[in-house]
């Protein structure tokens, strides 16, 4: 077990420097370079063509839909789209790579120089610089058999399934990220989460991390802090953590690597440039293969493919069709709804922004919509261990709010109505009718109850007449009780004060 330094201490001594490579599997109908369906799983080596197997004589053909998806993603990342980009061959021998080269993009990616706005849980906005987004093909899948760990070490033999070979990928590479400081783990999580939101918003990938549709390789190094006035220390040696298959893991893996590297550096050790394998179960990383900047992939332009030259019209058409960026959308909504930072942050953290949008669209005031979703509904969902969105619809919540606004329901009554809606008793109005929960708005009935209460408590009546208005509380309580809660307390109060002076002594 690696020695770890206390996180706060590590941050005192070192500045974390980050970089991410996120791979996204595009949900096109067919593969990147062949007409095999873009689907894997199932019987091994059945979803393949001569192209996916790299059979002699076979040739790749670029999937136009994958190019359009890549352009849309590049635009959503604020990138420039290259008028001409090119595929290249990345040459290395590995049995999951059918041709022993991967068709990727090297120095001429389709999208470059963008940025992504990321909001951290503490409300801090962070701009992640994007170096590039490029297209490439996925490799096949190796299964190592006979070892204890399922990894290549100790295995007796390995099986290879090429069904995944040629699945279209876009790889998003960030520039070096400085300044995350103690927020580094949260930034990592928020970044990947934002990328996922963007991709899902574009509808170009399933983006399920647990299924490998979206994979994050996290690069991290530590730079020793220098006293004020001295030049900054050089960048530290980085590690690249792979196999990070959930948002939570991204955060944990970064925190772990910061603590691990800090302990080594503080002991006078050096960091090995290598890939690190994240273990979800133990919450640790272990050494993978050494990775050197001198790895020579002998990139050269793929001679079997023409350059990708999207027309300006296509790019503009895709730009016009882009959904609003998550960060911009958040900023706009916060302003439109007039929420405080804290209120909006709560809402974001609850994951119910879309529900509030729809509830507002259905006529509810933003504050009321937020209050119901993050309050009573979220509490009930939590208690039942279900997703809040499964309990009620935004329309039902809007109808509930409307009943409150109209004075038909008090908050207390409305909670009972919500309970009925959740129990499947129908729309809020149906629940009101069925349970007879409406506020008694007949002043006559209220006055009768008030007069009775006042007359049965002459001492209270006397106090009110003496101007001790707060004494009215006891009467109001009695009236509400008599009305079984189905009265508007404010109206009752008004009437109590009125009747106290009106009643004969």
């Amino acid at each position, binding site marked *: 077990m690696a020695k770890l330094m206390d996180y706060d201490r590590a941050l005192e001594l070192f500045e974390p420097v980050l970089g991410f490579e996120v791979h996204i599997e595009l949900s096109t109908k067919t593969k990147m370079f062949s007409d095999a369906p873009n689907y894997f799983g199932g019987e091994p080596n059945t979803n393949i063509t001569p192209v996916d197997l790299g059979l*002699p004589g076979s040739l790749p053909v670029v999937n136009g839909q994958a190019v359009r998806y890549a352009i849309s993603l590049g635009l959503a990342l604020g990138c420039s789209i290259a008028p001409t980009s090119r595929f290249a061959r990345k040459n290395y021998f590995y049995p999951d790579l059918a041709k022993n080269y991967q068709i990727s993009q090297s120095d001429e990616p389709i999208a470059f120089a963008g940025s992504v706005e990321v909001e951290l849980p503490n409300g801090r906005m962070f701009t992640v610089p994007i170096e590039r987004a490029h297209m490439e093909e996925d490799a096949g899948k190796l299964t190592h058999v006979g070892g204890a760990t399922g990894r290549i070490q100790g295995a007796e033999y390995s099986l290879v399934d090429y069904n995944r070979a040629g699945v279209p990928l876009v790889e998003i590479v960030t520039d070096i990220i400085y300044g995350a400081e103690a927020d580094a783990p949260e930034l990592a999580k928020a970044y990947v989460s934002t990328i996922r939101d963007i991709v899902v918003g574009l509808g170009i990938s399933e983006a399920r991390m647990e299924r490998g549709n979206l994979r994050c390789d996290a690069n991290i190094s530590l730079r020793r802090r220098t006293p004020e006035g001295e030049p900054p220390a050089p960048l530290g040696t980085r590690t690249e953590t792979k196999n990070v298959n959930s948002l939570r893991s991204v955060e944990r893996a970064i925190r772990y690597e910061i603590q691990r590297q800090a302990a080594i550096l503080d002991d006078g050790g050096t960091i090995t440039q290598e890939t690190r394998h994240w273990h979800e179960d133990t919450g640790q990383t272990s050494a993978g293969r050494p990775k050197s900047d001198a790895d020579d992939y002998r990139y050269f332009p793929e001679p079997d493919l023409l350059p990708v030259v999207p027309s300006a019209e296509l790019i503009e058409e895709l730009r016009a069709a882009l959904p609003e960026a998550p960060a911009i959308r958040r900023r706009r909504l916060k302003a439109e709804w007039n929420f405080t930072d804290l209120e909006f942050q709560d809402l974001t953290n609850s994951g119910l922004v879309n529900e509030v949008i729809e509830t507002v669209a259905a006529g509810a005031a933003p504050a009321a919509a937020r209050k119901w979703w993050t309050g009573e509904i979220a509490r009930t969902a939590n208690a039942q261990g279900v997703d809040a969105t499964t309990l009620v619809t935004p329309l039902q919540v809007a109808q509930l709010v409307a009943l409150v606004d109209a004075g038909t329901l008090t908050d207390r009554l409305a909670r009972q109505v919500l309970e009925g809606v959740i129990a499947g008793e129908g729309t809020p109005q149906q629940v009101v009718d069925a349970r007879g929960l409406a506020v008694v708005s007949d002043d006559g009935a209220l006055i009768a109850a008030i007069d009775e209460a006042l007359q049965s408590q002459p001492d209270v009546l006397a106090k009110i007449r003496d101007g001790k208005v707060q004494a009215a509380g006891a009467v109001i309580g009695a009236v509400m009780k008599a009305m079984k809660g189905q009265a508007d307390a404010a109206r009752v109060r008004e009437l109590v004060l009125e009747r106290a002076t009106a009643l004969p002594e």
Partner: protein
Amino acid sequence: MTTDLTRLTADALAIKLSSGEVSSVEATQAHLDRIAAVDGSVHAFLHVASDSALAEAADIDRRRAAGEELHPLAGVPIAIKDVIVTKGMPTTSGSKILEGWVPPYDATVMTKLRAAGLVSIGKTNMDEFAMGSSTEHSAYGPTHNPWDLERIPGGSGGGSAAAVAAFEAPFALGSDTGGSIRQPAHVTGTVGLKPTYGGVSRYGAIALASSLDQIGPVSRTVLDSALLHDVIGGHDPRDSTSLTDVWPSFAEAVRNADVAGLRIGVITELQGDGFQPGVMERFREALALLEGAGAIITEVALPSVEHAIAAYYLIMPAEASSNLAKFDSVRFGLRVNPKGGGTVEDVMSATREQGFGAEAKRRIILGTYALSAGYYDAYYGSAQKVRTLVQRDFAAAFANADVLVSPTAPTTAFKLGEKTGDPLSMYLNDIATIPANLAGIPGISVPVGLAAEDGLPVGIQFLAPAREDARLYGVAAALEALLEQKWGHTLLSQAPDLSPSEMNATDEGAV
């Protein structure tokens, strides 16, 4: 005495098949018999597909008898260079590493041949992965030149050229990366054309150098090449580098051949030093004939051509080193398990060590080096710049000439074994053919007679701008007609009859 069907051109045979005078089974059997008689000496074939060929022929005969509308070439036998993948026929590309591999799919050109009803009689020998100019780098032994069995048939497509020259097939498919169709045509007295890059689909041609390779026709007459080109050409969505042009009929271009007013530019740099006198003599004669027929002969310069070989021998091996990486024993072909087992890398390494011949290894190493970090700009990068210069030279030359012309190769067929110890001298044999591949333009080689000093065939090469393949068919057909008119016979009728048992089989047999 019946006509020897193997002596007929594809066109003549096609006419007899259409008229019902001859059946495809008869024509196919005649060629299979000829192969059985002479291929022991020539070794043009790596695989003879007797059974499937006869079955295909019988099917054509049946369909013709049923009154089905067939392609004019239906039922004509054809030989296929082993670089082309053929469903059901073994495909080795001349290498041990693919010994016994039967592809599960057809190259696009094969699909087109089958659709036209041509009968594939077998796979022809070649230098391993098309790397060579003599077929001596075939892992299965060299092919012999039918004009002199001690000499090379050219390469890499020596098998296809020799098969056609030895009347084992009326025509054949070849592939040309730096001259592998044209140089064998030159040394065997046959016709061969490298189409414009992108004119014929490369899907299913085992790649040597993707940016240079083209499949093309090999035949005894210009018309037969044109007829075959008409079948195999055209856009293929499976090949991204395939042109979307609608091509004219090349057979029509042959029939309308006329050189009156045609400006023919003689390439200054591709004559003189290093060119055999007998080759130059036939070359000049041919130019004189064309001039006499109304062509305008001028001289043009291609100053960058002197760097073309150097550039070619960086680009070609660079692409080859990557293209040949897939031969690793994992999915197909040879697998060599090292003694005592080992990792997958050990198995890959042992397989490649044993499966590749010396020339393939030489080029893989050269190409790997040329692409390596730190050397890329100096080698691969510079070579690509030279390639651009060569293309500019051609563009400038074609401003003043409709076609360019040179001898196809500096010498006639050299002796087997003569250059195997000297790769550089072997590479220089392609000096005249390589520039067309670098520029992506079409080139044709047509026989112009025999060199006086050794009595061996000599070819002339015409080059045209990209997409102007039809122009080449026109000028080549015109020259062919002028020469045959002058000689009173075809050149190949002068070739030795290789089979004593067939001495009486032809009227043209005696010289």
